[in-house]
């Protein structure tokens, strides 16, 4: 490119403009060639809602340049020059407005970006939180499972404790009954205070021990009891046998009357033949006058 090229170009435009002027009505002042296009560009820019107000100074400058270009009449070179300048100024105003628009848009874009980043982090945090919740729930589940296992163990322990307690309770009961374990079972001896001499009727107020037996039998419904009567050797053997039987039977009847099933109870008289002490002394004879309740050591099954 050199200046002569431009000069030639400008001359051509000038000639063209001049030709246009002569071709048209000479009395009406024509606008310079290209000025209408520039005006149209300017109008378009001014009508563009995204750009119109974003480069006010440059736009005003461009508008002035377009005005000047439009009113240049005589000097065609000058007119072409001014049209060119106006065109550049309009384009520059457009570009500057675009910069401004882009910068304003960037603020919003950065906000969006920041929001997206935040959302992303929030989501990650949420995911992490959810994971944590799931993990916690799982661990809670495991804990529940563990505690289930533990509660099973606890139950076993409890059962063990219970059976221990039961055993302890049984022991206590037996202690109360003053029962002594023998190979026949738990033997508890009711003294002769139950009956008047020679009688087979239970004395009223002498039933405390019997009531304990009732309680025990109710507590351990699978146990059975054998009730055996004994006497000293005072009197005839037959009479003693009969008395021991009747006394054992009286105890049985009393227990049945207290709600112990008769199926769990047997009664028998052993008479004077199984002394536990010497019949020569009064103390020995007193020991021999007795009713023994033999409670089955092992719980019988199906007897209720």
């Amino acid at each position, binding site marked *: *490119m*050199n*200046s002569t*090229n*431009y*000069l030639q170009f400008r001359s051509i435009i000038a000639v063209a403009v001049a030709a246009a002027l002569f071709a048209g009505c000479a009395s009406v002042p024509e606008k310079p060639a290209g000025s209408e296009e520039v005006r149209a560009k300017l109008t378009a820019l001014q009508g563009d809602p995204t750009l119109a107000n974003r480069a006010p100074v*440059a736009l005003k400058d461009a508008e002035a340049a377009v005005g000047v270009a439009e009113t240049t009449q005589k000097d065609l*070179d*000058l007119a072409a*020059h001014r049209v*060119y*300048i106006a065109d*550049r*100024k309009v*384009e*520059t105003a457009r*570009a*500057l407005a*675009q*910069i401004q628009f*882009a*910068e304003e*848009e*960037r603020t919003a*874009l*950065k906000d*969006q*970006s920041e929001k*997206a*980043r935040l*959302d*992303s982090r929030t*989501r*990650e945090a949420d*995911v992490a939180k*959810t994971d944590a919740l799931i993990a916690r729930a799982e661990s809670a589940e495991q804990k529940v499972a563990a505690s289930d296992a533990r509660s099973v163990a606890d139950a076993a322990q409890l059962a063990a404790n219970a059976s221990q307690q039961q055993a302890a309770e049984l022991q206590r009961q037996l202690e109360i009954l003053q029962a002594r374990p023998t190979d026949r079972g738990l033997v508890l001896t009711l003294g002769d205070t139950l009956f008047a001499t020679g009688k087979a009727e239970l004395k009223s107020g002498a039933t405390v021990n019997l009531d304990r037996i009732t309680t025990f039998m109710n507590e351990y419904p699978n146990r059975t009891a054998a009730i055996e009567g004994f006497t000293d050797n005072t009197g005839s053997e037959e009479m003693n046998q009969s008395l021991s039987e009747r006394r054992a039977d009286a105890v049985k009847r009393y227990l049945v009357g207290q709600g112990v099933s008769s199926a769990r109870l047997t009664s028998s008289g052993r008479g004077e033949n199984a002394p536990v002490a010497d019949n020569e002394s009064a103390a020995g004879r007193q020991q021999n006058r007795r009713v023994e309740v033999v409670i089955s050591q092992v719980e019988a099954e199906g007897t209720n």
Partner: protein
Amino acid sequence: MRRRLRIALPALLIFAAAASAGTPPPVTNLQAAQQAIANAERVDAASLAAVELGEARAKLSAAEKAVAAKQMVVGAQLADEARADAELAAARAGAAKAYTVNAEIKRSTATLVEEMQRKAGDSK
């Protein structure tokens, strides 16, 4: 060094022309054009608005030649046009940069959102 020469040489020519003709050379116009071109170069117009900047340089060159040929009015007009071209080049370079930056932000945001949706899809 070369640039200084480029500026110095036309200046000499202008003074020479001024000495021999009645119309003073458009020194201010030429300087304004040079300044505008330098500004445009500073904002990467050489790559972002190469056509406009090329136009401006060519016009400035033509202006200097016109002045050297004692065509002061044409020289002044060409200098003014060079300046207008250079200012347009700078503005368009700025606009191109601004759009590039925005496009980059949009792209990264879109990527982020897309990634997020994919993750959301995964976690469902």
